[in-house]
């Protein structure tokens, strides 16, 4: 590595950061060590495989921040006035995949907007700003919208419990598909469950549990009985219709240019009216992007974009890639995360959208072009 490489990356970060300040972002700093329980509660056990955990005898587990989003949202929810625009520039730490030679510490420069006035305009503001800042690098932009698939699931003609189960696994496409196959009658009910359902017809679930074994643990027999009742409800619920499954399948595989994708989704809203408001939100966003001079007839859209990597996003999502540089992962990414502000806001919430750039990679593209 050239001896001045880190210094050049820092210069690139400062250059990007200046652009975000110029755009109206207030510079903020957050602590490098974050309480692990907050992050674990938010992201689940998988975060342990990705973030560095350290121990403090008095304060418990601490994590080296794996991103800025959570601490910035928390800071805003506790102290912030509305509307707000923030920018940050600093290192984050993540464990590289075993065997990978990627850095475990790297800079991120980000921009986040907390504004409830016009979410479509805020989406366009953030995307437009990133597109503008990255314009000299000739990157390819990918976009998606987690809100459309969410709305489609919520619009299915089936019991609430099934919708909740599907929404919970929106970010795990394999599991999602498995659940859908079962709710659609494609997969059979497992043998043990059939036995249980047959037994529960004759005997009360609580008695069945007592017969099976001594009650131990925090999960109560009422919890067990409640789930047996849920399984009984599920067993008699009609399968999700093949028409609805076909629409859901088409939506999850939809990809094309933004304007044609929006037109197709508008058609699909005739079959699944529940997606209508999510589709019109997308249309308002495209109009706002168009007003910013972004050609939406050339902008890629994939309805499933962001389903495997960007866990907390629940609306518009985007990423910028250097095609032809297979050695570089996504150079910038972001999206809308309204639900996260609700989780961290203790009863309050605010529409929020933002993104980050990795200066190390934008610099690599910049230098290669020169």
């Amino acid at each position, binding site marked *: 590595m050239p001896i001045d490489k880190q210094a050049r990356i820092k210069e690139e970060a400062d250059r990007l950061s200046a652009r975000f300040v110029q755009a109206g972002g207030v510079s903020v700093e957050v602590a490098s060590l974050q309480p692990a329980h907050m992050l*674990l*509660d938010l992201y*689940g*056990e*998988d975060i*342990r*495989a990705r973030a560095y955990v350290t121990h403090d005898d008095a304060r418990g587990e601490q994590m080296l921040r794996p991103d800025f989003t959570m601490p910035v949202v928390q800071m805003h929810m506790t102290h912030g006035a509305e509307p707000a625009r923030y920018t940050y520039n600093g290192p984050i730490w993540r464990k590289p995949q*075993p*065997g990978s030679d990627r850095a475990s510490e790297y800079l991120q420069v980000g921009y986040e907007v907390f504004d409830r006035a016009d979410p479509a305009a805020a989406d366009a503001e953030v995307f437009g700003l990133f597109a503008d800042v990255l314009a000299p690098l000739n990157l390819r932009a990918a976009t998606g919208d987690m809100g459309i698939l969410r709305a489609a699931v919520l619009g299915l003609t089936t019991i609430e419990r099934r919708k*909740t*189960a599907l929404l*919970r*696994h929106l970010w*795990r496409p*394999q*599991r999602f598909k*498995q659940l859908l196959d079962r709710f659609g009658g494609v997969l059979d009910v*497992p043998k*043990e*469950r059939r036995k*249980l359902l047959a037994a529960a017809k004759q005997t009360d*679930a609580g008695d*069945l*549990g*007592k017969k*099976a*074994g*001594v*009650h*131990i*643990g*925090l*999960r109560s*027999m009422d*919890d*067990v009985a*409640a*789930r*047996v009742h849920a*399984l009984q409800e599920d067993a008699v619920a009609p399968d999700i219709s093949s028409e609805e499954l076909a629409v859901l399948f088409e939506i999850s595989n939809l990809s094309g240019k933004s304007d044609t994708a929006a037109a197709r989704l508008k058609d699909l809203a005739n079959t699944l009216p529940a997606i209508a408001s999510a589709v019109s939100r997308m249309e308002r966003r495209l109009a706002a992007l168009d007003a910013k001079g972004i050609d939406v007839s050339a902008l890629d859209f994939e309805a499933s974009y962001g389903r495997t990597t960007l866990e907390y996003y629940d609306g518009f999502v985007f990423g910028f890639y250097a095609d032809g540089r297979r050695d570089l992962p996504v150079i910038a990414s972001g999206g809308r995360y309204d639900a996260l502000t609700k989780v961290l806001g203790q009863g309050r919430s605010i529409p929020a959208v933002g993104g980050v750039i990795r200066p190390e990679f934008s610099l690599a593209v910049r230098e290669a072009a020169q």
Partner: protein
Amino acid sequence: MTIKLGVPSKGRLQEQTFAWFKERGVHLQLSGSAREYAGAVEGISGVELVLLSAGEIPRELAAGRIDFGVTGKDLICEKLPLWDSVVKEVQTMGFGHADLCLAVPKCWIDVDTLDDLDAVAAQFRRSHGFRLRIATKYHVVTREFLRTNGVADYQLVDSQGATEGTVKNLTAEAIADITSTGSTLKANHLKLLSDGLILASQATLYKSRSAGGNLTELAEFLGVVGKP
């Protein structure tokens, strides 16, 4: 240069390892008293015995401080990320069988598969306000297994022993542990998930990928131990 062979420093695993090598004409012996951690090798030249805790053998193999080592597959998978690129499996040895499995209370009549466990994890988090706890000492392999199988809303809690007791003691809701016979599970009112086998482990002879040693000696040693 001699070949360094790491074997467990005590217990049943050591006895069985010695017996296994003996059947192949290699006599491993403790020198001096049984409490002294030094050994000797007869029946083959250029092999030196190194007595180590089974749990440390993976690390020593990875570092290349021993050329061969006998330990459980569970320990290799847990302690060495990308273990396949650091050590080579020479021979499974047919003893020390241990299955790493997920187990839940027997009274959970609604749980038989990972799919059920996942649904219960969601229910538990809703009704108790925290993630369902799975007690284990095999964090890496358990987490990877649950991730691959799409189980969410759980957390791992560390348990270095008496793991089967954690559910009764209210420090966990489920466990991921080694079950050799299943009788400990039964005694602690637990049952296995039908698709919850995380790893089937047994004592295995591994070769360090950075193994040193004279090529002829290595060939001779491999010729001897390579016999199934």
